[in-house]
């Protein structure tokens, strides 16, 4: 009974979304206030229906209703409760419902925080979001119903894929979807602006917080996926340039360009066409990503059980939504004009270069990901494009971009001189060069790649300091603190995010260039030496978990005879997935290095095992840097101009928002 209600609610949501697409849009065109005012109500009603439907699916999982086919294939009697809840998004149908729910949620958020927008604008935004919802809910209702029932109810389910039974994997999809779906908001704003013919600085100011929040979510979502791969796959790797990984990385690159482009449009009224195009392309790539993952067109470890019928639906949806938006763009963009001018050396120029470089980087990943498909489609056989290609091509392409991060913040808006900029920059470059020479040497061996990355990272931090010092100049310490408190949060957000990126770069470069590892065959009692640490293998025991059996290893780590830590790598075999043993690496994380141990295979029957031991310097900096980047993003949108608006909304005052000059 309940699953059928869930199905009904989805159809209801579909109808509500359809009305939400049409009514407010027509209302905006005709000036019909009553129709426009329906938009928030429809958004709320749609969200409520979806939330209940989602709740019902979750209920089926928690209470083991295996008559629901989707629950039977993704859950089991022994699955712990937290994984029963996350298993709802463990497969195609449920993850799609989650996506749709989050889309509805963003719609409600837009409806709630748009009091300071002209009602025609917010109506159009909600209408476009309604259209996107119609597409996705339709996809669900017509091809991927999570509430399908099984005629013969099994006694136990097939259990959740063991790869997903991990804390990191619980949060990875929701965070990713919060990001992807958030870009539908930026897209909707861009469309609303094109439809209404009003593409100005205020549109950018409204759009910016939504886009930045979505960017933060996507950043965290991608990083969490890497974190999981690092811990779960046993080989210390965290990025494989798999097509599905690329499908999340490409929108991230364009979204980064978008948030920078929005900044220029807001402050200077320039880059309007760029910003609209980036908003369209970012959203387009999220749908392309969905297509790649769910259609079976590419081979990937991440792909859901694929079905070409679903592929056709998504392809048609992609064609309609993005095709329409690009046609609208081609029609309206020529009338947009260029906005404020700027001289050939200025911050605008640097940011334009930034846009171009990010688009080029994204295109490079795109070409590499699509190339096997292109070759196959042309009948030229099958080929593979993997990490060796991407590492050779992408890293050099990123270098000019990263250097922009050092230069940009120190170049003035509109009109700057090379001489002026260089005067501010040269201390930064000097320190960067010094670090690039010295730091790799302290790690053992000088290498070009780590040196370049160190130069860039140090430069970014240096730029922050050079930009900070004049702003907190004061006769005494108290004065400096007082000035620090008054720093513009938007400006601070930029630097914090950049510094976060710098820290991430160090983590990546150092771990990749200076890691050491050993594969060894060890019997209980054997000791392995690596990077100044002694790893003593104590043996492996059989241990039983909730829905798995584990071979539980113990390794003691000592430095200079003193015990540093005890690690417990495991090899788990889940009851319902006997053919798929899962390695659970055990990691000792510390500021300057990770020590990583994973179990290979047993050797014979004497209790000896193959064990892999890693020393990874600065690995934690990768994750820490990403978190700092996200904090930077949050800071950027917690700027007082946005806070003032929220306060105004809460206190009910209806003042006209003032034009903000930065």
């Amino acid at each position, binding site marked *: 009974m309940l699953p059928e209600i869930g199905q009904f609610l989805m159809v209801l949501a579909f109808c509500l979304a359809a009305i939400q697409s049409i009514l407010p849009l027509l209302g905006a065109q005709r000036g019909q206030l009553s129709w426009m005012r329906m938009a928030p109500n429809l958004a709320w009603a749609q969200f409520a229906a979806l939330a209940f439907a989602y709740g019902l699916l979750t209920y089926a999982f928690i209470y083991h209703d295996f008559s629901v086919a989707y629950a039977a294939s993704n859950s089991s009697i022994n699955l712990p409760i937290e994984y029963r809840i996350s298993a709802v998004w463990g497969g195609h149908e449920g993850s799609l419902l989650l996506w749709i729910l989050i889309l509805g949620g963003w719609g409600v958020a837009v409806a709630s925080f748009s009091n300071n927008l002209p009602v025609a604008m917010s109506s159009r935004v909600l209408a476009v979001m309604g259209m996107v919802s119609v597409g996705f809910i339709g996809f669900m209702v017509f091809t991927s119903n999570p509430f399908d029932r099984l005629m013969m109810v099994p006694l136990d389910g097939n259990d959740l894929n063991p790869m997903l039974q991990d804390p990191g994997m619980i949060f990875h999809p929701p965070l990713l979807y919060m990001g992807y779906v958030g870009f539908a908001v930026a897209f909707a704003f861009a469309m609303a602006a094109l439809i209404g013919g009003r593409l100005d600085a205020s549109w950018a100011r409204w759009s910016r917080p939504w886009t930045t929040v979505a960017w933060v979510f996507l950043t965290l979502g991608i990083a969490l996926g890497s974190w999981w791969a690092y811990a779960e796959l*046993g080989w210390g*790797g965290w990025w494989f340039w*798999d*097509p599905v990984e690329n499908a999340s990385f490409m929108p991230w690159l364009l979204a980064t360009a978008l948030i920078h482009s929005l900044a220029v449009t807001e402050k200077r009224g320039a880059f309007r066409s760029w910003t609209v195009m980036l908003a369209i392309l970012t959203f387009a790539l999220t749908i392309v990503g969905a297509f790649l993952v769910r259609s*079976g067109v590419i*081979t*990937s*470890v991440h792909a859901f059980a*694929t079905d070409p019928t679903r592929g056709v639906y998504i392809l048609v949806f992609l064609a309609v939504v993005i095709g329409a938006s690009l046609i609208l763009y081609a029609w309206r963009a020529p009338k947009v004009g*260029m906005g*404020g*001018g*700027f*001289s*050939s050396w200025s911050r*605008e*120029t640097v940011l*334009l*270069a930034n846009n*171009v470089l990010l*688009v*080029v980087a994204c*295109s*490079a990943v795109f*070409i590499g990901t699509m*190339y096997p498909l292109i*070759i196959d489609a042309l009948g*030229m*056989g*099958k*080929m*593979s*494009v*993997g*990490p*060796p*290609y991407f590492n*050779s*091509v992408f890293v050099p*392409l990123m270098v000019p971009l990263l250097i922009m991060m050092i230069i940009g913040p120190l170049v*003035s*808006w*509109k*009109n*700057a*001189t090379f001489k*002026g900029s260089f005067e501010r920059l040269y201390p930064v470059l000097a320190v960067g060069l010094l670090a690039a020479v010295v730091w790799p040497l302290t790690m053992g061996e000088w290498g070009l790649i780590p040196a370049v990355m160190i130069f860039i990272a140090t430069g970014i931090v240096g730029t922050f300091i050079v930009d900070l010092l004049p*702003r907190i100049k004061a006769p005494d310490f108290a004065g400096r603190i007082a000035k620090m408190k008054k720093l*513009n949060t938007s400006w601070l957000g930029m630097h914090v995010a950049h510094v976060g990126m710098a820290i991430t770069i160090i983590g990546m470069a150092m771990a990749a260039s200076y890691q050491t590892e*050993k*594969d*060894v*065959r060890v019997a209980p009692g054997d000791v392995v030496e690596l990077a100044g640490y002694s790893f003593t293998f104590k043996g492996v025991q059989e241990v039983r978990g909730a829905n798995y059996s584990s071979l539980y290893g113990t390794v003691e780590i000592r430095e200079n005879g003193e015990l540093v830590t005890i690690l417990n790598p495991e090899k788990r075999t889940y009851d319902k997935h*006997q*053919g798929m043993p899962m390695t659970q690496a055990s990691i000792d994380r510390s500021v300057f290095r990770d020590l990583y141990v994973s179990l*290979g*295979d047993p050797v014979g029957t004497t209790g000896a095992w*193959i064990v*892999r031991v890693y020393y990874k310097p600065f690995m934690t900096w990768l994750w820490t840097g990403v978190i700092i980047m996200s904090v930077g993003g949050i800071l950027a949108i917690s700027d007082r101009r946005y806070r003032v608006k929220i306060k105004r909304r809460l206190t009910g005052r209806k003042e006209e928002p003032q034009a903000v000059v*930065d």
Partner: protein
Amino acid sequence: MKVIVGIFMVMSFLISSSAYALKAGVPLEFENAEQEALYNDMLHELRCTVCQNQSIAGSNAPLADDLRGHLYKMVGEGAGEADIKKFMVDRYGEFVLYRPNFDPSTYLLWVGPFLLLLLGGIVLRLNVRSRSKINSSSDLTAEESELLANHLDSKEEKK
């Protein structure tokens, strides 16, 4: 019965019996450092053809075990990277290489991104030139604009 799912059913519980089979992670002896480096590099360059997009470095599939074994044998016999790649391509086609060869069918792949970079640079140059022309008569010189902007930046919070 899903055709596509049914096609590849390599049972991983089958204990590999080839003399050349190497389980993942088994410590190996090499004659010299170059051979070891070559082996480790090639592990990441060769694709496991039965897997869902994995190199033979980490895969547990029996075929991956066999291919690692062949790789080890060839490295031990002094084969170079080109020989090893030829061996694999002769049997499995270009599909087995994760780093595509540089030939007419892949010019676009290898050169494309850098061509785009060049194109981007040109677009940038043209764009910046046309925008700087919009910059109408400013009463301030470039240096003065810069000074004023920096001054305004730091005075911002006083509002």
